[in-house]
């Protein structure tokens, strides 16, 4: 049989797209080579956050966070969706000025933020170090447990008629079909490639690079933290140069554990935990949360963010290959923007009104010569 759409990759983005297209009545088949939500999705903190580095990021993340809020009442309890809000923390007056500017930018997308004085900061988060300059509180932001959310989206897709097949690896993408590792072929009118860091394995010329991150989780009964805490310098770390960077980013888990992030590095392609990075990660977190020094680490791990040269995802048709669509390169924001990505891709594929401007995410901006890409 010929599917209307084959989705390659069962991370949260692929699952969201499968759900969206199945709901639109398409015959959908999602292929995942391992387990649902097992790669970048599993390594994500699941922070549903509106980011405002540029207007494109702002509109995609604000739209997506609103979609998460709509879905929240239906999510299973194990998806652990909680409106923790985000507390962006300023260390000095200059960062406080940045907090004010950030508030303005968020407001332009209809997202409310509230500037917080040092005294208010101490009340909101007593575990924070004294001497901080204040911050910006965004109450609409939330957190979710990504692998369960991804699997739930996949179940909704199945309920709407989709096939979801795990343990099925795609070896190559042909013209109107995909070749499986076991030698089989599946035909489809549309092939949507949403396999994160693995996209270049299937499509030469798609500029997705791995950007490694380290995470660490504590044991339970840690100092109470109420919001997702992020330093305002985070964006500089996230979007700064190609060098290694570390930023304070802490999430309270419903279990009472604290999840500590975040590090970024391009040069290390191995999945091992690097003690040097862990040291920087913990040291940075302790500057903001001194009580961490007495806390216990349970586990540390790493993951890879699929990154594009301009830090914006690739959502739309891949001009080099007719019938092939991309939904990848979300870097550290794939969980947040999965729902917006699915809506935007579905609107393009089904020729529906776009929820927001699609051009900033168009893969065409990186498309090499079509024939060359095909040959590669």
């Amino acid at each position, binding site marked *: 049989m010929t599917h209307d759409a084959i989705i390659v990759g069962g991370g949260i983005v692929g699952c969201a797209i499968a759900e969206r297209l199945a709901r639109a009545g398409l015959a959908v088949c999602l292929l995942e080579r*391992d*387990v*649902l*939500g*097992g790669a970048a999705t*599993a390594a994500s903190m699941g922070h549903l956050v509106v980011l405002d580095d540029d207007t494109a990021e702002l509109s995609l993340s604000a739209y997506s966070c609103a979609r998460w809020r709509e879905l929240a009442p239906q999510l299973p309890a*194990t998806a652990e969706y909680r409106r923790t809000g985000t507390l962006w923390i300023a260390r000095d007056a200059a960062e406080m000025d940045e907090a004010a500017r950030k508030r303005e930018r968020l407001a332009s997308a209809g997202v409310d933020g509230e500037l917080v004085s040092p005294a208010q900061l101490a009340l909101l988060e007593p575990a924070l170090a004294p001497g901080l300059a204040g911050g910006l509180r965004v109450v609409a932001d939330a957190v979710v447990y990504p*692998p*369960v959310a991804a*699997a739930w989206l996949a179940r909704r897709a199945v309920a709407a008629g989709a096939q979801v097949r*795990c*343990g099925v690896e795609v070896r190559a993408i042909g013209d109107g079909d995909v070749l499986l590792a076991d030698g089989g072929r599946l035909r489809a009118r549309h092939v949507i490639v949403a396999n994160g860091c693995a996209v270049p394995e299937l499509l030469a010329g798609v500029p997705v690079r791995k950007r490694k991150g380290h995470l*660490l989780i*504590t*044991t339970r009964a840690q100092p109470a933290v109420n919001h997702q805490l992020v330093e305002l310098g985070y964006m500089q770390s996230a979007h700064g140069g190609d060098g290694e960077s570390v930023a304070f980013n802490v999430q309270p888990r419903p279990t009472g554990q604290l999840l500590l992030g975040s590090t970024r590095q391009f040069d290390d392609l191995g999945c091992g*935990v690097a*003690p040097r990075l*862990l*040291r920087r*990660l*913990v*040291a940075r977190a*302790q500057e903001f949360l001194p009580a*961490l*020094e*007495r*806390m*216990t*680490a*349970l*586990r*540390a*791990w790493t993951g890879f963010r699929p990154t594009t040269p301009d830090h914006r995802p690739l959502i739309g048709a891949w001009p080099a290959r007719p019938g092939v669509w991309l939904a990848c390169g979300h870097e550290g924001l794939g969980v947040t923007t999965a729902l917006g990505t699915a809506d935007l891709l579905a609107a393009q594929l089904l020729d529906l009104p776009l929820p927001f401007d699609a051009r900033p995410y168009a893969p065409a901006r990186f498309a090499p010569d079509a024939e060359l890409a095909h040959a590669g």
Partner: protein
Amino acid sequence: MRELRTEILVIGAGPAGIAAAVSAERAGARALLVDMQSEPGGQVWRGQWDKPTNRQSRRWIAALRQSPVECRYGLRLVDFAAPGLAVFDGPDGSLRVRCERLVVATGARERLLPFPGWTLPGVFGAGGLQVLVKNGWPVAGKRVVVAGSGPLLLAAASSLRAAGAQVLLVAEQAAAADLARFAARLASHPAKLVQAAALRLRLAGVPYRSSAWVERADGDEQLRSVRLRIGRYSERLDCDALAVGFGLVPNIEIAQLLGCTLADGAVVVDEQQHSSVAGIYFAGEACGIGGVDQALIQGEIAGRAAAGSARLSFGLRRARARSERFARALDRHFTLRDELRHLAAADTVLCRCENVGYGAAQVCRSQRDARLQTRLGMGHCQGRVCGAACAFLFGWDAATPRPPLAPVPLSCFTASPTEENPQESP
């Protein structure tokens, strides 16, 4: 953070580690022996440092006491900061050890399998209860059922009886025919034969049933009774405690962390006990369950090899071949029966740390899928208990361990050795 340097670091001071460290020193190398317990002995020679109770432990403990091997106890391995740089955590904070070669002798742990009621107070691991009893936990007059599989059940029953417990029954899941073949095999292993005879003697009067296993444990807040399957019959037995264990599984976390090749849940080593990674040797149960004789022989070989003395004497070779035959017999004759895969109900807890039920795990595709979807194995023990159960129940591969190997203070990561303390020298 303190830092030590040594030529050969031996992790684990059970029989294999003691033999490795002593043998390495005898071969002219400097060895540092480290263990997480407060004294050497491991599980099998627990409490024997001051009063060894058998010929083997007397010999090796005396050898360790007389040897110049440096020993450090109460240290848990956290991670390797680099190849040849181990980070430990202990009562005095963290300690880094630089070594040229590494011998890992971290033994085995008990395999526990879920059945209804297995988490009730009063249900113990067979080895775990034996440890408690050796440490003075009172069992005098208590009615205890010992169940599961393997020679450890006899040792546990023997310890319990010696401590005054009333052992109602030893229920071995293996079939009588397999046990008979195993006993016949013992005849060619003199040490084991003596050991087994001594046990039989002490166990006189204790019923020992084959093809028998616990189907469920009952009680409100405390174990009151167990329901046993004995052959084709089902029987209820009132008791105060149940000691249950389904054999041993090798501790392979360090091997996984270091990227050593594994096969069938054990570390693959060559004739010199050398793993697939240069400079890293394994000895004892981590290479496959074989008991104390095998651990001592492998430890001796590993210690000598790590010290650069690669030639094996004829005696060592022969001893190893014999211990390997015993290990294979263990494996073959105590194979766990399929019925044990179907004891748990959907709501029977499988992962105690994260309170994950058997039913929730059963629908997952792999250990990793279960970790992600249910948090199975993500808690305090990091899947050491449920991982071995899942390997048997569902055929899942062990999940990759994440550092730290044991929960440690966050300060362990930030302490900087060069800045805070000049290097000590052993």
